[in-house]
């Protein structure tokens, strides 16, 4: 049987059978002890775990209820972030979770007074497509403490889910300075990136290890994945979804990740997308390097082991999405080339040249080191070095005869005491100007998903924080065409979404601007 994952909002509000049965399965899973491989907390722990974080979120697990050491070491804390394994690992995680949910549905005993509904044999995880018109709000069934009959233990409801305004109203902002964007990542032609200051790739930087939390997130992971986590979990209040160590405990996590998984399929169907890597270092996953393999428990008690290569083709996984059409208004990457003066045919040829070109990255400019946000923001100067700036200017002027460089702004070594923050970056914003009035100067926004963990000296990043990358090619093109690049510097202003973020102790090691050929 081929299962179809459907849009949760389009199933009908507020309690379509697919969501109702998901809630029933979650209830079954939540009733089990964390040590049980089919329990809710076990599956949350597979993504991430930290005793203090779970305790803080009201999810503490008694020592006696924890998994055995063998199960803990084998299954828990597996999530792949900041890596080209991000998408395939999460695809397998969702696929295995669906099977466990179906088993839990079968075990659910309908209360006598409950409205009868047949167990859907073709049940598949719905997805939350927050980008679709009028679907940016959290699906209703997740926001109500009650079941459809008014009883108050709806397992889809979560109190540790604060929303972008920290008031418990959960929605994804799609307009304004902190808007979550769908199209940015889909314009990237190449799956694999490198954590060297240039493009981190649609699917994430190439890594050669079990990348539980690497510092540089891929483009799709940065936007919209991280951002949705931050918007659902909260800003100044940190909810389950704000932190990768607790995110898997929120029932909406799975619908969010189904949408991210769907966007992978949307991207693969785009004409400029170069497809998944075929390198055995990707297809084989960390196991190729003799590192910890990807493993999931199955309802029959067996262990399912998989690799990224197993995840590349949905046909082999027996599920599809009901909608993988590209979003309306998605601009192809050739638009930038046309804006620089190339005719459409030439722009298409230049794009192919860029894709085929050897990839070279060099530092173009950098700020001072040790920047700390105060009052929720910081302004600094990024001095552009003369030689690479001249190379960039000559290169941009050479369009349409030659392919232009791409330019990336990196917030390097970003540390924070807690997750949940969103930083929006502006370039050359006039002094005293209202940022909201200058969307043309907005470089983009990044969420600090995983920043707290990345700031721990014994964490996976050795305390050096995250490095968050934004492509600013189009913005730099405009500066070039207006002659503003000749000033030899960029004035960068970083603004936290909520002004009361001082207790989050957000600091930026350095802001670097890089040019990339190819």
């Amino acid at each position, binding site marked *: 049987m081929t299962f179809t994952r459907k849009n949760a909002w389009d199933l009908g509000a507020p309690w379509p059978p697919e969501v109702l049965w998901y809630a029933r399965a979650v209830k079954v899973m939540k009733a089990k002890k964390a040590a049980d491989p089919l329990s809710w907390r076990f599956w949350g722990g597979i993504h991430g775990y930290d005793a203090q974080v779970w305790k803080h979120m009201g999810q503490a697990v008694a020592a006696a209820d924890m998994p055995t050491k063998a199960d803990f070491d084998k299954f828990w804390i597996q999530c792949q972030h900041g890596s080209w394994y991000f998408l395939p690992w999460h695809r397998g995680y969702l696929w295995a979770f669906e099977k466990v949910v179906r088993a839990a549905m079968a075990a659910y005993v309908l209360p006598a007074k409950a409205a009868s509904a047949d167990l859907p044999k073709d049940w598949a995880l719905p997805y939350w497509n927050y980008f679709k018109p009028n679907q940016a709000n959290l699906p209703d069934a997740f926001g109500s403490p009650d079941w459809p009959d008014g009883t108050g233990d709806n397992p889809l409801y979560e109190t540790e889910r604060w929303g972008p305004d920290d008031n418990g109203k959960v929605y994804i902002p799609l307009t304004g300075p902190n808007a979550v964007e769908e199209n940015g990542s889909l314009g990237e032609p190449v799956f694999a990136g490198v954590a060297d200051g240039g493009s981190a790739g649609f699917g994430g930087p190439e890594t050669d290890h079990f990348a539980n939390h690497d510092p540089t997130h891929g483009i799709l992971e940065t936007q919209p994945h991280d951002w949705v986590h931050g918007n659902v979990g909260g800003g100044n209040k940190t909810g389950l979804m704000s932190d990768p160590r607790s995110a898997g405990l929120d029932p909406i996590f799975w619908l969010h990740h189904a949408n991210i998984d769907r966007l992978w399929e949307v991207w693969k169907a785009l004409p400029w997308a170069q497809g998944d890597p075929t390198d055995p270092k990707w297809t084989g996953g960390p196991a190729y390097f003799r590192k910890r393999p990807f493993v999931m428990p199955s309802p029959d008690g067996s262990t399912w082991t998989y690799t990224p290569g197993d995840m590349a083709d949905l046909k082999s996984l027996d599920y599809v999405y009901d909608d993988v059409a590209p979003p309306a208004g998605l601009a192809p990457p050739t638009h930038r080339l046309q804006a620089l003066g190339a005719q459409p045919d030439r722009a298409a040829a230049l794009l192919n040249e860029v894709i085929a070109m050897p990839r070279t990255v*060099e530092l173009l400019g950098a700020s001072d080191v040790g920047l700390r946000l105060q009052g929720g923001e910081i302004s600094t100067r990024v001095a552009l070095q003369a030689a690479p700036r001249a190379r960039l200017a000559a290169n941009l002027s050479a369009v349409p005869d030659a392919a232009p460089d791409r330019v990336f702004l990196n917030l390097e070594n970003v540390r924070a005491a807690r997750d949940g923050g969103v930083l929006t970056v502006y370039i050359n914003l006039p002094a005293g100007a209202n940022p909201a009035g200058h969307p043309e100067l907005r470089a983009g926004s990044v969420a600090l998903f995983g920043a707290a963990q990345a700031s721990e000296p014994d964490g996976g990043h050795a305390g*050096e924080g995250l490095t968050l990358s934004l492509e600013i090619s189009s913005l730099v093109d405009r500066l070039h065409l207006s002659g503003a690049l000749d000033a030899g510097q960029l004035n960068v202003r970083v603004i936290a979404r909520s002004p009361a973020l001082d207790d989050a102790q957000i600091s930026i090691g350095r802001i670097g601007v890089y040019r990339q050929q190819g």
Partner: protein
Amino acid sequence: VSTASRARRSFRRIIPGALITLSATAALALVLGAGHQLAPIICGGGPALLATPKLMALIAPWRLAAVWLLMLAAMTPALLVLPVRHIWDRSFADRRPATLTAFSVAYLGIWTLAGAPLIVLAFTIRAFGLVGWGVAAAIAVGWQVSPARQACLNRCHRRPALSASGARSLGDAATYGLTHGVWCIATCWPWMLTPLALPQHQLAAMAAATLYVAAERIDAPAPPHWGGRSSGRAVRTAAALVWRWTAAALVAQAAS
């Protein structure tokens, strides 16, 4: 694409290969030197070495320095892939030679400071033969499985913010080299000491130690606790690396 661009790209990609080549070259020099000028230090041993004026004369400072630097050049480059790439990425192209030099001088400098007591200790252990070596190895194993050692190993993964311009770029690179060296010494001193303190087969032991610490460094940081979490995996990784290199060499030989 300009020739310069290709060169920049290709160098970043071959950083691991370049460092391993440096390591292999230094190892070869040690092997060749072990039979000649450097023999008293690498292979000499026992109380006689410390007690005999004639032999003491052989331990001229230049010999000590040569052996130590060759040991460092043989054993540490594979550990420096991450910091060298970090400096390469975070430096302006024309500053890379200077920042990499500042890092290297600081790193080698702090290791060289550590070398004097380690060599004296190694000779002292040799004076007590296999029993002395066994005691030293037991202490080394104790350190190896300690949480403190894992904490030091974790700090070897640091990639700090680096200034890009002026004297500050050199200062930051040198500070990085110094701190990286300190955590490296704290993590790896037993792997330098115990091979050197062996009564014989020192070079083979150094090679094995190099392979082990390089494989271990590939693992991400982990919470410190007793037990030597990554040792088994590192050994498997090292074995896999050797197997792949051997297989690749055989394939290349067959193809030629």
